């Protein structure tokens, strides 16, 4: 029987009238003679909320919520010792999350290499260097696993590595892309801060596979803790002989260092990232030649995302076939999503590929923030992605399916949108981000993005014409076809996908001059409803432009010419008498 780990999240200690579950669990373990067979780990978060005492038992991955004193004996005897699941305590049966990349996050001390090794760390590296002893065999394992790049495009990792491996040159470089710029996605940060050794180990294995002697970790300067943790991890790895000369006596020599980013979204693009490491402005170059052939300082270089690299050690230690069993036919393994927006439990979730969006939103993340509102769409892939309307929520999530719907997997941002969000406004937000972050090198992205943003502003200000929609589409296609790098090619995706599924909403802005969600403030009109108004006059005092006139006898009205639509009156009214139209 494998050693079991019991995770305990006890936020309800006060409600439990001071009963100490940890001690009770430990006592029961001892009484049942299982003290040696399981360990208890108190954790801060399991991802289940408002459900009293929560236990998760690993490796079974079963979660029990609302556990009471009387249940403890049953849990230990049936689940810990006999491996049976107690249905009535189980939280949604088996948890739909499957943690591979985030396996150690929050469970091992990120500053302790010993902790990481105890959790099975550096076994992948050992296997690569001392058992497989061949670059080809390492790449073969990656091929079997079917791992694809987690940074966005989903290019098969083994193919990249194999290209670089076959280059005959004196010097090759391995680069880790930790320039996480997608607003609303922070899985790379969590892995770098929570499990730095997994990334370091992945980098060493990758360096060995392609024949590099030098690795760079490119990390955002905005993540000082991640930098500190990685620095410590590199230091410790060096001390343990896992980095530097003759690693594990295998004859393989490899060094690594950190390079800081400086806040440029475009540096997530491979060739721009390389320019940045070289000490230049982060502007992309036309490809080919691909970096795997001619990259950093014109030498073959492989750039992999943090999440991709963090999955590598376990692929090696468990074998490629292990990962290939998880996921769909074309997309293997798991993906971490940063789910936010109008959702009950915001946060990081790691799910197997092929799970449906509905399962992620309503089961893993607990459903909508306000259950009375209706879900409208889910936006995936950040500023390069698109929206997926609610009719397609049952689509299994993988690279191909999201692509077919006009969105992308991207780095894993996932925003849940309800009926109070305006699609024109959302498209404007994402496009505005890409316009801000465009490096300005190529015209389609620099000018196209700006012109599209002007058109969207025009529409949300109520000055749009129907012809503008065609103009938007034409510019968007030009950007997709002619831009130099991924940023420009995908910047129009949010606009195109909202136009595809929510054209009615655009038309409401243009033809009816109304914003159905009540977000675009130039199309709103604030009115005081006579039936609800108690004539208290609070709104008059709070109006910055003195647009509200009247008196307590006759009631109050808003002068639409003077009104600047700041929304103060709606906010201060205790009787919900000021309505937006």
């Amino acid at each position: 029987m494998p050693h079991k780990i019991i995770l305990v999240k006890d936020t309800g200690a006060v409600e439990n009238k001071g009963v100490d579950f940890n001690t009770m669990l430990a006592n029961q373990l001892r009484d049942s003679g299982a003290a040696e067979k399981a360990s208890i780990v108190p954790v801060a978060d399991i991802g289940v909320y408002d459900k009293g005492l929560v236990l998760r038992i690993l490796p079974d991955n079963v979660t029990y919520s609302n556990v009471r004193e009387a249940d403890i004996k049953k849990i230990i005897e049936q689940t810990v010792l006999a491996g049976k699941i107690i249905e009535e305590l189980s939280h949604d049966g088996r948890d739909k999350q499957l943690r591979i990349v985030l396996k150690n996050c929050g469970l091992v001390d990120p500053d302790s290499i010993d902790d990481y090794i105890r959790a099975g760390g550096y076994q992948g590296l050992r296997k690569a260097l001392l058992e497989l002893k061949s670059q080809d065999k390492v790449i073969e394992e990656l091929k079997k696993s079917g791992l694809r790049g987690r940074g966005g495009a989903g290019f098969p990792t083994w193919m990249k590595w194999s290209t670089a491996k076959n280059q005959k040159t004196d010097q090759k470089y391995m680069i880790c892309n930790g320039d996480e710029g997608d607003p609303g996605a922070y899985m790379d940060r969590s892995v770098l801060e929570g499990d730095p050794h997994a990334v370091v180990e992945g980098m060493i294995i990758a360096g060995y596979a392609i024949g590099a002697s030098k690795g760079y970790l490119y990390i955002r300067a905005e993540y000082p803790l991640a930098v500190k943790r990685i620095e410590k991890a590199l230091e410790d790895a060096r001390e343990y002989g896992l980095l530097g000369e003759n690693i594990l006596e295998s004859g393989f020599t490899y060094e690594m260092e950190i390079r800081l980013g400086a806040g440029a979204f475009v540096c997530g693009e491979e060739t721009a990232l390389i320019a940045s490491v070289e000490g230049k402005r982060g502007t992309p170059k036309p490809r080919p030649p691909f970096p795997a052939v001619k990259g950093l300082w014109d030498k073959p270089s492989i750039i992999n995302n943090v999440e991709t690299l963090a999955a590598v050690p376990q692929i090696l230690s468990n074998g490629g076939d292990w990962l290939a069993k998880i996921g769909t036919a074309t997309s293997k393994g798991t993906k971490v999503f940063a789910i936010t927006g109008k959702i009950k439990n915001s946060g990081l979730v790691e799910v197997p590929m092929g799970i449906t969006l509905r399962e992620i939103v309503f089961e893993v993340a607990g459903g909508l923030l306000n259950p009375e509102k209706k879900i409208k769409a889910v936006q995936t892939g950040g500023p390069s992605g698109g929206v997926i309307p609610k009719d397609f929520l049952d689509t299994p999530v993988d690279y191909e399916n999201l692509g077919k719907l006009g969105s992308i997997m991207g780095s894993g941002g996932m925003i849940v949108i309800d009926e109070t969000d305006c699609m024109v406004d959302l498209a404007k937000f994402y496009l505005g981000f890409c316009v801000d972050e465009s490096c300005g090198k190529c015209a389609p992205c620099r000018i196209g993005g700006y012109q599209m943003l002007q058109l969207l502003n025009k529409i949300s200000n109520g000055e749009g014409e129907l012809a503008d929609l065609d103009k938007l589409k034409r510019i968007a296609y030009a950007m997709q076809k002619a831009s130099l790098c991924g940023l420009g090619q995908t910047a129009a995706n949010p606009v195109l996908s909202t136009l595809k599924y929510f054209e009615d909403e655009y038309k409401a802005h243009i033809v009816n001059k109304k914003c159905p969600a009540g977000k675009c403030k130039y199309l709103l009109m604030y009115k005081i409803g006579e039936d609800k108004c108690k004539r208290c006059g609070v709104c008059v005092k709070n109006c910055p432009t003195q647009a509200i006139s009247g008196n307590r006898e006759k009631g109050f009205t808003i002068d639409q010419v003077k009104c600047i639509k700041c929304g103060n009156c709606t906010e201060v009214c205790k009787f919900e008498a000021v309505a937006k139209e």
Partner: protein
Amino acid sequence: MAVKSLEIKDKEVREKFKEIERFIGSEHKLNDNQGMLMGVLHKTQEVFGYLPAEAMDLVSDRLGIPTAHIYGMATFYNYFTLKPRAKYQVFMCKGTACYVAGGGRVLEKLQETLKIGLGEVTPDKMFGLNITRCLGCCGLSPVMQVNEDIYVRMGPEKVNAILDKYRKKETKKRKVSK
């Protein structure tokens, strides 16, 4: 024009220049001098709080890279700034989660209260206002950062109280120093 640290009269600035020179001396070459540039600029900003023109000249001289290129770097990357920073730098998150949760209204309120635009500093150098693209606290959105302090679940109504906290801190400091 080359800058010699000895020619600078202000003692404090001279020390800072020397610190940067020491850093350049201690850094190992990364392929070529240009490979070191990013690290050196980070150090310079750490020492001065921003990138003054004289410091860029110094770096140019020591690394043998045209100042024009260094200026190009400094203006390309958001992290570098050419203006001195305020005592309290306010960053409002404009990431997607904060945006959906109504961060835009907090930003409007900040601009209105401080009477400055984005990237500007109040005349008394107390507050500066900027946006940031995600602080990684999306579950607690909207999020605002003042120097090292993070404020979560922000709303326009909380702005004044938070700014007052820093104003009071400064007044107290002044009283003590008198």
